[in-house]
């Protein structure tokens, strides 16, 4: 009987809610501005009001639960920022290794927790600074690294046994990881003590950022090499940072960022299992990297949905037994693509809101962009303000006091559910098309992103979407009044000298032998990591090592599709 009465009460309540909602809707419609579209940054419709009707399918323990517990919707640690604040990790690197080392010492002296290395394009593409394709690019969007000599300079005076370092690399990730290991070894720090993260997610390069060397198959093989090596030799190292950041920057919506990134992650997991690794051996060291764009609630919902989707798949699809395998840990960077060259000081404000969404979404580490990044690499002043943005957030706003404070919000929970459902729909579509690698080959993911990017731009061009300082609130005859960092054109020459020096001190026979061994390891389908470490130890250059692997794997050229 009690059961029946409860059912009756529930339906009575639902009826009352429906009636009250209808009354409110009439009143609200009368005063709503109907000429404006109410959509997220991802052009998703948003309702004017969310109520318990939007969250009635939620079972608290099953879908939301407690932080540090499955499905981790509320965060991966039981105490979240009360236990440990997020790691403030500013991505930085420019010019010569010496100049970058100086910036690192400055940032660390100002309270930054961990390092994050930006390399220049020749380094990322496997060209030495003296290669003709490096013309004009040396030291420009990051630091130039040609040999171990350069890595030694970058980390001079920094104890690699104490600091954690993230390195954004991709195609030649295994080479730079090898250099890092050898630099540490020379400092007396063994590989098993190293902490940090390797960004070597190549799939998102084919999808979004477009920096690759080899074709997809061997590229993924090299990644599995680093995952296997890290799993066995570097227990504290995050072997990969599976990245949605660049997918979003290329114009993807929040759901596309989430779906494509997780799909990439599952591809690496499947490849690692194929290699013979046990999922619970390697999964705890996988990490993710997301974007924080301008739509505050949409971003928070994205991070919460990411953790829940991942936990479910790891537990039930990949049959992981260890709770650590179920946890999606991630780094966040605020959206570079949300920043503008007009009134660049406004970028400070944008970045601050974005950073707050990342923290409310439970990020493990954070990079806040500098206000001048639409004009040049960050100046000292802009880099310091970017770091201070995080410090104000952590110390002054109270966001760290309570965990996942937006849980239970009808809007955020409904949006979290919607994200999950749309993400699952993309997974089904990707599976139907034969998986991520096949989707990349046929350009499906790239086209989806390009479409979203154009939709967004058209909204701005038509002023459906207002961007302050760009298509609204424009300053006539604006004079930009912030300091701009200039990279000295002499960097390329200094790097040429550095390569010469490395070549003069090394044993050429050993260089030739280790390179031949590496080629043979590639042909024999062995794990390349130990062979690459042998190469870098001999001051073999980045270009020489990557060329040796090109001899076996070939190079990838993307057809110029629009």
């Amino acid at each position: 009987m009690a059961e029946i009465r409860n059912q009756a009460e529930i339906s009575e309540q639902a009826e009352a809610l429906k009636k009250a909602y209808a009354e409110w809707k009439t009143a609200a419609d009368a005063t709503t501005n109907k000429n404006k579209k109410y959509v997220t940054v991802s052009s998703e419709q948003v309702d004017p009001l969310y109520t318990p009707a939007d969250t009635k399918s939620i079972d608290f323990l099953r879908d939301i639960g407690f932080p540090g517990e499955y499905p981790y919707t509320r965060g991966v640690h039981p105490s979240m920022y009360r236990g440990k604040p997020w790691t403030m990790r500013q991505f930085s690197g420019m010019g010569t290794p010496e100049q970058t080392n100086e910036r690192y010492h400055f940032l660390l002296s100002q309270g930054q927790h961990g390092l994050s290395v930006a390399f220049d394009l020749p380094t990322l593409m496997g060209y030495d600074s003296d290669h003709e394709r490096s013309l004009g690019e040396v030291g420009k969007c990051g630091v130039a690294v040609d040999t171990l000599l350069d890595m030694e300079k970058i980390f001079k005076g920094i104890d690699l046994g104490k600091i954690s370092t993230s390195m954004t690399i991709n195609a030649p990730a295994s080479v730079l990881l090898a250099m890092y290991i050898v630099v540490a070894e020379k400092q007396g720090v063994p590989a098993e003590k190293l902490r940090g993260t390797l960004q070597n997610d190549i799939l998102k390069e084919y999808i979004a950022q477009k920096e690759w060397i080899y074709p997809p198959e061997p590229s993924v093989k090299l990644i599995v090499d680093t995952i296997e090596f890290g799993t066995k030799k570097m227990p504290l190292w995050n072997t990969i940072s599976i990245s949605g950041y660049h997918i979003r920057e290329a114009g993807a919506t929040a759901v596309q960022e989430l779906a494509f990134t997780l799909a990439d992650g599952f591809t690496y997991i499947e490849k690692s299992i194929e290699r013979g690794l046990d999922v619970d051996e390697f999964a705890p060291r996988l990490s993710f990297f997301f974007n924080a764009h301008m739509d505050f609630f949409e971003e928070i919902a994205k991070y919460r949905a990411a953790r829940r989707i991942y936990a479910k798949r790891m537990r039930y699809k990949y049959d992981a037994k260890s709770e650590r395998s179920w946890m999606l840990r991630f780094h966040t960077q605020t959206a570079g693509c949300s920043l503008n060259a007009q009134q660049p000081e406004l970028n400070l404000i944008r970045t601050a809101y974005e950073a707050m969404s990342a923290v409310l979404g439970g990020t493990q580490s954070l990079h806040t962009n500098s206000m001048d990044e639409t004009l040049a690499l960050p100046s000292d002043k802009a880099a310091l303000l970017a770091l201070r943005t995080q410090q104000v957030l952590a110390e002054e706003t109270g966001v760290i006091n309570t965990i996942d404070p937006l849980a239970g919000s009808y809007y955020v929970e409904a949006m979290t559910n919607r994200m999950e459902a749309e993400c699952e729909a993309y997974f089904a579509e990707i599976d139907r098309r034969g998986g991520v690698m096949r989707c990349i080959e046929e350009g499906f993911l790239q086209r989806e992103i390009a479409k979203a990017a154009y939709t967004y731009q058209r909204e701005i061009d038509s002023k459906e979407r207002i961007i302050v300082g760009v298509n609204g609130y424009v300053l006539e005859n604006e004079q930009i009044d912030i300091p701009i960092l200039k990279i000295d054109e002499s960097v390329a020459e200094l790097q040429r000298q550095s390569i010469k020096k490395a070549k003069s001190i090394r044993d050429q026979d050993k260089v030739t032998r280790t390179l031949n061994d590496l080629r043979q390891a590639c042909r024999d389908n062995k794990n390349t990591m130990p062979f690459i470490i042998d190469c870098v130890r001999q001051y073999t250059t980045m270009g020489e090592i990557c060329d040796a692997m090109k001899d076996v794997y070939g190079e990838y050229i993307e057809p110029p599709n629009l």
Partner: protein
Amino acid sequence: MSDKIRILLAKAGLDGHDRGIKVIAAAFRDAGFEVIYTGLRQTPEMIVDAALQEDVDAVGVSILSGAHMTLFPAIRKLMEERNCADMILFGGGIMSEDEITELGRKGVSKLYGPGTSTIEIVEYIKGAVAKKRAGEKLV
């Protein structure tokens, strides 16, 4: 020969960030232009070769990696050497005002940073091509 405006779009140097160039390509097509896209990692030689071969009115180059101060002048110089200096050279990327001024002096007609409306770029190209074509008729 068709009156359609013909544009070559190219990604120069090692940079792979192609969101901007794809968006502008779509906007140009919607505006009725003929767009030829070279794809990624083009050297100045490859770009000027393609521009000549396709006989375009304008060449748009996107560089977000910081190599603009080297690559734009190199492309311009080649255009002069190969007698196609009448082609409009324009571009986009991450550059400071000082750099844009300097590249303007070196023969780059127009450079755009983040936040530029595609309508503004389309209008600029229409105007510049009209001027260029009018100039040709005068000769």
